[in-house]
């Protein structure tokens, strides 16, 4: 085969392969949807994180504002220390309230942020003081059963 035709076909092949990779990255993967380049870190203590995992989303008013970057157990307080990185574009007041929520009945767990009224904003390395832990279904059910058991039988 002619050298130039050969080069042309190989060029088409390589360009198509790279285009496929780019399509996977942008359209299928999360590279095109969320830019984490400009972020600031905050952390918060939760008594129980439930099924929260690293890379879980952080939402405020339903809008994705950041990701959970790490979950560790603080052995001083015996509470979970959750590291979050938030998008620089979204600033939150110092008295923001963080709670672990579930999307849908069986969905993934995420952190919901409800801003407070403080005029000072959260900075890099700050701690969110007010938190609410995940709802653990077993505890809820056992509480319910316990309440039922202590109720007087056949209230008539």
């Amino acid at each position, binding site marked *: *085969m002619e*050298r130039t035709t*050969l*080069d042309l*076909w*190989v060029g*088409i*092949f*390589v360009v*198509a*392969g*790279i285009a*496929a*990779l780019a*399509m*996977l*990255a942008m*359209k*299928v*993967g*999360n*590279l*095109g*949807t969320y830019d984490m380049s400009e972020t600031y870190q905050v952390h918060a203590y939760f008594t129980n994180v439930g099924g929260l995992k690293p*890379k879980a*989303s952080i939402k405020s008013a339903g809008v994705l504002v950041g990701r959970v970057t790490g979950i560790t157990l603080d052995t001083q307080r015996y509470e979970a220390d959750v590291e979050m990185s938030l998008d620089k574009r979204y600033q939150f007041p110092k008295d923001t309230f963080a709670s672990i929520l579930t999307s849908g009945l069986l969905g993934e767990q995420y952190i919901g942020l409800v801003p407070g009224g403080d005029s000072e904003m959260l900075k890099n390395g700050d701690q969110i003081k007010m938190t609410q832990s995940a709802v653990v279904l077993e505890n809820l059910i056992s509480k319910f059963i316990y309440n039922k058991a202590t109720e007087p039988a056949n209230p008539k």
Partner: protein
Amino acid sequence: MVPTFIEAIRETGHRSINAVWRIGMATRFFFLTLVYSGNSFRRFHLIVKELFSTGVLSLIIIVVAGLFVGMVLGLQGYETLRRYGSESALGSMVALSLVRELGPVVAALLFASRAGSAMTAEIGLMKATEQISAMEMMAVNPIARIVAPRFWAGVISMPLLAALFSAVGVLGGYFVGVIQIGVDEGSFWSQMQAAVDFRDDIMNGVIKSLVFGTVVTIIALFEGYDAPPTAEGVSGATTRTVVTSSLAILMLDFVLTAIMFRGT
């Protein structure tokens, strides 16, 4: 009784020694290829020529297979997910299974039978017609001239083919799931983008296909280079290439998956 028993043991020993010897030779061959590949980068048109026969000529089978695998995934995934009322997760299911597993593995299996067997037959026939000996006579290193360009062409084209396979597969899943069945288009793409991570899923898939490309190409080249210079020898070597590299792909895939995706 006893002599046949000893004979059987001896046979086992002979086979084991042979297997170890072949693995050692293949490893030595691999390192020789790496050592002599400097020249083939200086004469890049040799690699380009091999890229045509390994990459471009494999394009059709890869694209068609990817399209149909994606369409089957769309259909089957929809039928299963519908039972749990989570059809909207179809996109993430199709994309994850393609990017993590099916893309690299099926593309590598097709590559082994399409391009690997051709490589083995070509080199085996070169050896049978004494072209390789002739090159040695002319003080041309056959590993640098014949083997190394083919090796690098295989290593370069494998990740590109796997990426094409996955991308076309996602489009096939989209075609069946969204256009034919009517899953919501927005949730199809957004759930997919939420589930697929660039580094954890896509890059690990690329690493997998790089490993598969290296292994398949080196097996194909070694079998060809090592083939007995007869008609049966070449045909046996071609068969062994497909069998050995398919098994190697599947086993390595298990090992790589265990390393990459445990605990995520």
